[in-house]
C-alpha cells in the first residue's frame, strides 16, 4: 500500500472519531443545562472547550457558548465538527480507489448534509438534531467500513487512527473533569455534582455499561477504573490501546516490514501499564500525571509509526 494512502486513511479515521466525540460531548452538556446546575453556563462551556483541547483564550469577551457553537458549526474553526467531516472526506477522496463505494457514499452523504447547514443561521438554534445526525452518521460509517472493506492493511491504519484519537480524547476529558470535580476521600457529593459525574460517563456512552459493572453507585475511583482500565468497554482507554496494539501488530504481516520493532514496543509498554496498574496506585500517584503520560506515549506511538511506514527517509530505503 502506498504510504500516502496509509496516511490519508489514518487521518480520515482520526477526524471522524474527533467529530463523533465532540458531538457527543456537546450533546451531553446541552442536556445537563436543562437540569439547572448551579455552575454558570459560561463556566460549563469553558470546561467543555478545555475537554476538547481548545480552551477559551484568556481575555476573550465573547461568551464560551459562542465558542462551543463554533466548535460545532464553524468551518473556519479547525477542529469543529464541520471541518472534521470536511477533512475526513477530503482525505477519503484522495484514496477513493482504496475503499469500498459504500464507505464513500456514506461519508459523502454526511458531508453534503453538513455543508447545507449555515453557521450564521445556527446561532439561536439548539443543535440537538444536528448532533444526533453526526453521531448516527459516524456510527453508520464505522459499520459500513467494518462490513464492506477488506480487513487488510488499509483497514488496520483506520483502526490505528480511530483508537489513538479515542484514547487521547477520553484521557483529555478525564483530566479536565477530575481537575474540576474530584475531591479525594469525599463520600458525600452534592446532588448537582452527581449529575456531572453521570455526564462524564454519558460523554463516553458509558453510563449504562458502568451501572452494569458497578451499579448506579457512582464513585470517582470506580469511574476512573472503568473509563481508563476496563478491558471490555469500547470507549475505555485500555480498550482503545488494546485495539491500537492489535492493529499495529497486524501490520508487519501485511506489509512484510521489519521496521515495526520500535512502535510495537511503545504500544506494548502503554498497554502493559493500563493492564497491570491498579487504580489505587494511579489515584495515589496523581491522576493528572498518569493521564499526561498516556498523552505523551500516544504521541510517541504516532511519531514512530510514521517513521516506520510513512515518512521514512528515501536513501536508506533504496539501499535496503
Amino acid at each position: 500500500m502506498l504510504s500516502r494512502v496509509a496516511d490519508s486513511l489514518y487521518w480520515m479515521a482520526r477526524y471522524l472519531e474527533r467529530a463523533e466525540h465532540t458531538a457527543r460531548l456537546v450533546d451531553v452538556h446541552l442536556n445537563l443545562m436543562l437540569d439547572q446546575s448551579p455552575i454558570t453556563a459560561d463556566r460549563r462551556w469553558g470546561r467543555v472547550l478545555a475537554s476538547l483541547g481548545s480552551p477559551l483564550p484568556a481575555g476573550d469577551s465573547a461568551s464560551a457558548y459562542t465558542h462551543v457553537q463554533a466548535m460545532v458549526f464553524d468551518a473556519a474553526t479547525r477542529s469543529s465538527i464541520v471541518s472534521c467531516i470536511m477533512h475526513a472526506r477530503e482525505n477519503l477522496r484522495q484514496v477513493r480507489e482504496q475503499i469500498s463505494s459504500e464507505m464513500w457514499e456514506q461519508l459523502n452523504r454526511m458531508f453534503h448534509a453538513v455543508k447545507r447547514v449555515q453557521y450564521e443561521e445556527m446561532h439561536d438554534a439548539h443543535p440537538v438534531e444536528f448532533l444526533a445526525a453526526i453521531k448516527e452518521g459516524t456510527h453508520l460509517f464505522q459499520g459500513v467500513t467494518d462490513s464492506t472493506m477488506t480487513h487488510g492493511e488499509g483497514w488496520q491504519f483506520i483502526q490505528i487512527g480511530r483508537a489513538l484519537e479515542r484514547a487521547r480524547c477520553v484521557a483529555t476529558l478525564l483530566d479536565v473533569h477530575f481537575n474540576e470535580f474530584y475531591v479525594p476521600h469525599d463520600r458525600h457529593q452534592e446532588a448537582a455534582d452527581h449529575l456531572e459525574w453521570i455526564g462524564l460517563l454519558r460523554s463516553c456512552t458509558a453510563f449504562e455499561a458502568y451501572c452494569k459493572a458497578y451499579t448506579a453507585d457512582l464513585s470517582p475511583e470506580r469511574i476512573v477504573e472503568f473509563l481508563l482500565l476496563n478491558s471490555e468497554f469500547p470507549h475505555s482507554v485500555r480498550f482503545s490501546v488494546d485495539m491500537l496494539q492489535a492493529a499495529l501488530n497486524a501490520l508487519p504481516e501485511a506489509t512484510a516490514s521489519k521496521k515495526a520493532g520500535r512502535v510495537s514496543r511503545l504500544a506494548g509498554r502503554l498497554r502493559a501499564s493500563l493492564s497491570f496498574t491498579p487504580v489505587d496506585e494511579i489515584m495515589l500517584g496523581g491522576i493528572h500525571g498518569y493521564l499526561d503520560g498516556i498523552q505523551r506515549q500516544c504521541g510517541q506511538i504516532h511519531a514512530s509509526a510514521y517513521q516506520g511506514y510513512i515518512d521514512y527517509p528515501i536513501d536508506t530505503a533504496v539501499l535496503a
Partner: protein
Amino acid sequence: MSPAELPAPFRSYQLDVAWDEMFSPDGTPRPHYQALYELMQQLPADEIRRRKQAADLSFLHQGITFTVYGREEGTERIFPHDLLPRIITNKEWTLIERGLEQRIIALNLFLKDIYNEGRILDAGIVPRDMVYSCKHFRRQMKGLRLPKDLYITVTGTDLIRHPDGRFLVLEDNLRVPSGVSYMLTSRQVMKKVFPQLFQQCGVKPIEDYPSALLATLRTLAPYGKHDPTIVLLTPGVYNSAYFEHTYLARQMGIELVEGRDLVVHDNNVWMRTTAGLKQVDVIYRRIDDDFIDPLAFRKDTILGVPGLFNAYRAGNVTMCNALGTGVADDKALYAYVPKIIKYYLGEDPILDNVDTYILTDDASRQHVLANLDKLVVKAVGESGGYGMLIGPHSTEKEREEFARRIQADPRNYIAQPTLMLSRGPCFVDGQVEARHVDLRPYILYGDKVTIVPGGLTRVALRKGSLVVNSSQGGGSKDTWVLYE
C-alpha cells in the same frame, strides 16, 4: 409532416436541415428509436422527472463529479447528464469501428516515423516545418524506440454527423483523453432508470473497458516483463478528471499514484509503500507532457517526478500514452491525416475529415479572411472549446480580433465550415426537444485495436448551441450500440 404535428411530448421538437438521430425528415421515428419513441409517449412527464432526479442524486452521492476551475465555492459539480440514450445501429457502428482502427494504426505509424527516420517528411507528404513548429512536438523523443513501437495506447476520437448522415472525424485526442468514466457510470445509472428499454432494444455491453485497458497496458511492459507493476499517475485531487482517475484505478485494481509517491533512482522508478519501495514498470499517466518531469520539461511543476523521463528513455519504464503524441492531434496536421493514411496503409480513409483550411497557405487564408462570418476558426493547440470563433454567432468586433490574430500567426489557426451537428432527443422541462450531439468513442491499442461499442455522447444542452464541451454548458448521454 411538419414537426408541430408530432405527438406529445415531442411537440416542440425541432426538425430541419440538421441530421436527426431519432426522426426521419418526414417526422416518422427511425426503426432503432421506435421503442424509445413509444415509451416516451406512455411515461408521464412527472415519472420521467422523478427518474431524472433519482439519477442526479445517484451521481452526487457516488461523487461522480468534475471540477470547475477558477471558483472558490462549489468547485465540484455533477456531470450534466441527459436521460435519453443516443442509439446507434450495428451497421453504423461497424463502419465507425473499421474507420477508427484504420486511423489509429496510421497515426501510430506516423508518430513512429517522425520521431525516427522521418520518411513521410522526406517524401514531402507532410511539411517538415509544420511538424517541427507544433508546440506538442517533443524533440526529446527523437530516436527512442518504444515497446512494440506503440505511441498511442488510449485515444478518444471526436466524431460528428454531417447533415447527409455520414460520420466525420472532428478531432483526434491522442494525449490524455478523458471522459470514459462518465461513459461507464452513466451506463450503470441508465440500467436502473430504463431496465425494460435495455431488454427491448438489445444493447451491446461496455463494462469490459477497464479490463481491456489493463490487458492493453500489460502488453507494454518493458523487456516483456511477465507480471508488471502498473500504476495510474494522476495530477491529484484538484484535477478536473480526478474522479475518473480513481474510478479507473479501482476498476483495474492498480495503484493510483501522485508524483510525490514516486522516486527515480538509477533510472528505475519506485513507489513509496508502507512496506518500503516497490519498482514500477508501466505508468498510465494522466498528466500532460509538460508537467511530467521538471528535469526534462517545465521546471515549475511539482506534479511530476524528477528523473522520470531519463528512466523512460533508458527503457526501464513504459508510459502510456507515449510523450509527444500531441503532435499528431495538432489541428493543422489534422488536415493531413487522409494523406497520412494513404501513405502508410495505401488505403482511402473510411471516415472522412471535416474540410479544413490551412492558413499558412496564402490562397486559403485570403478566402478565410473574406468569409469569417461563415466559418469556424480554431487555435491549433487549444482544446475544451476554448480559443474558438464561431462565425455565424460572432460579432463584428470578434471577427476583427480573429482576423488580426490570424495574420499575426497563421500557423496557430485553422478554419472549418460551420458544421450543423446532428441532433438527438433530450428531456428538457417536461418535453422532449432536439439538441446537438457529437460522439467520442474510446480506442485501445495494444497487441490489437479494441473499441468498446459506444462511447461518450456529448450534448449541447443549451438550445441552439453547438458547443458540447462540459466546461461550456455541455452534458453527456449514454450511447447504445445495438446488436441488430
